């Protein structure tokens, strides 16, 4: 047994897989983190991921330019986020109902439009960072990936800076903790909330595109299946801190990678349904063990209308 464990812990490809799967989760989770700090919950990040994923595939088929496709993916994510934001935080429709409907809508759209396009996509080229990717075990995982993956290294600190070091971020945090006080202080509560949702849309859209070019290479509508939800779980697992959300993504990415790599490591095949269930089971178990509600933004999931509590 110990030999097996050593194999498990030093399996380079396993970590590479982990990183790739964690990245798509992280794009969604980091964006949703900002939105949840403002007090909103957007289960439509699933739709935003899918929209970016699909949009990038279509764009690349039309014009084989990775950067363009990723940008379009991001814009589609923003568009979907705009629907969610406008309907729930301008018109005060129920944010869960809207999120759910958008998810269903996107799934239907993807299934409907996919046969229309003869999708032709490919993986982006690997860009190993010279010295760093030679570090044993973790090197290739962190620094030997296809180049779109590295975008996450920029977005995480950027997001941290936005929320912790700008006025906008301070207002976002205020809005999520005490929207009445923020309102009286002159902040447009719902506008801030909508902006954070748009940000989540941008990140998730880009994340879906990066996933296409960095991990899967080919569009299947089942590629995203549930990743948005797991990303939200990662935010909760992390106690609504950025660090925690990223840690959650790594953890869930690891479990997802296990699903793909365990049979190879062990040398024999495992029950495929059990493997496929692993990410979701792990999410539940992890939340059971680690979810702490004390750091939850006080106004989370409570819509704001001025004058009414």
């Amino acid at each position, binding site marked *: 047994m110990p030999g097996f464990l050593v194999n498990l812990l030093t399996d380079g490809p396993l970590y590479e897989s982990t990183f790739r799967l964690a990245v798509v989760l992280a794009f969604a989770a980091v964006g949703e983190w900002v939105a949840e700090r403002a007090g909103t*919950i957007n289960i439509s990040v699933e739709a935003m991921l899918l929209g970016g994923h699909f949009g990038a595939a279509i764009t690349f088929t039309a014009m084989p330019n990775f950067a363009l496709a990723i940008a379009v993916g991001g814009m589609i994510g923003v568009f979907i986020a705009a629907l969610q934001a406008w309907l729930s935080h301008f018109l005060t429709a129920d944010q869960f109902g809207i999120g759910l*409907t958008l998810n269903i809508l996107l799934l239907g759209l993807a299934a*409907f439009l996919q046969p229309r396009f003869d999708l032709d996509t490919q993986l982006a080229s690997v860009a190993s960072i010279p010295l760093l990717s030679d570090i044993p075990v973790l090197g290739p995982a962190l620094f030997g990936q296809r180049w779109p993956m590295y975008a996450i290294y920029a977005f995480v600190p950027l997001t941290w800076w936005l929320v912790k070091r700008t006025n906008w971020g301070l207002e976002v945090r205020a809005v999520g903790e005490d929207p009445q006080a923020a309102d009286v202080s002159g902040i447009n509560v719902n506008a801030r909330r909508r902006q954070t949702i748009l940000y989540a849309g941008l990140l998730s859209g880009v994340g879906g595109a990066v996933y296409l070019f960095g991990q899967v290479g080919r569009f299947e509508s089942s590629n995203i299946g549930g990743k948005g939800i797991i990303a939200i779980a990662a935010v909760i697992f992390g106690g609504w801190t950025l660090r925690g959300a990223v840690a959650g993504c790594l953890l869930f990415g690891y479990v997802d990678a296990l699903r793909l790599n365990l049979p190879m490591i062990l040398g024999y095949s495992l029950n495929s349904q059990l493997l496929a269930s692993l990410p979701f089971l792990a999410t539940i178990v992890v939340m059971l063990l680690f979810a702490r509600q004390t750091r939850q933004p006080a106004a989370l999931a409570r819509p704001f209308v001025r004058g009414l509590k």
Partner: protein
Amino acid sequence: MNMVLRSAIGRLRFGSDQRELALLYVACLVGALLISLLLIEFNGSSWSRAVNALVDGAFQSPGRWGETLRRTAPLLVVAVGSSVATKAGIVNIGQEGQLLVGAMGGAFILTLVQPGTPIMLVLGIALGAVAGALWAGLAGVLWYWRRIPIVLSTLLLVYLASQMAAFTLTRGALLLNVVPGEPNRLLQSAAVASGSRLGIIEVFGNRFSLSVPIALVIALAFSWLLSRTTWGFRLKVLGLNSRTAQRAGVSHFRYGMSAILVSGAMAGTAGAMMLAGGESQYKFSSGFSSSVGWDGLLVSLVARNSPILAVPVAVVFAALRSGSMFLSVAGIEAVLVDVVRALLVVALFIPPAISELRRKRRAMARQTERI
């Protein structure tokens, strides 16, 4: 931009609240249909062919009425269960999984116990209800014990349920129908024993099972339960103001859990009834739920969580589903219907949201100010 929109909305006056609401609904419906039109045209076919195919498939062609009714039943039952949960303020969106688990549970009795008898039918459906309730109850336990949001856990459980269902169909010891001498190409269960099937009603060549009247009864029963019993009253209090509920003796756990269990039971019942009523030739397979759970949720959203209103809305949704069978004949993807229906729901969110907003603003103006 928002300021312009806001004042535009504020300035819309149509004389009476009802008229305004009706106009909003019409405007939004038209908008959704226009987008659907665009999609159809983009597809290369004409919308008139699409509409004809839909109407043909849903009502006109012989026997299609029955198909529509058949599909209405589980949608209605799921929607009714969802209304109960929403009234109590619980966001249970895992009905797709609860339905699958219910069908799975029912399948154990319905397909495996030979010979079939009406008692087995009842037991099968009951087991389906219990299974659905437990699946939803799991999410409830996770909330009351560890504060894991129900919206999240019910969604995760949907994915788990489909894996579980697939699993039961890989083992002959479970639900897989192993035909001796033939390789297992179709992953499905045995058919429901003929004695355990729901009776078929035939009206003018339209065939549907007893699940339709049963669903109607369930809708009426819950409408009564929600509006005319202390249980329903207390559920409403819990959903509208949980602190006042606590003060008035409505235990969050007891009433919240009961709402979750009921909504899960309804989804499970719908699944079991689908199986016993003839869905997919009485055989359980891994795609069995075919989005009925999601659709049922959408029905209840559109029907504003009223079991009675859910009846006509469920019929409309069912018509879209049965109509979609004929779309391929007209050269259109059946999946279009999925898109149209989601578009409709999005559009239908708008009018009640606007009127809620304005009502709240007016209510605020009426309050005596504090000091």
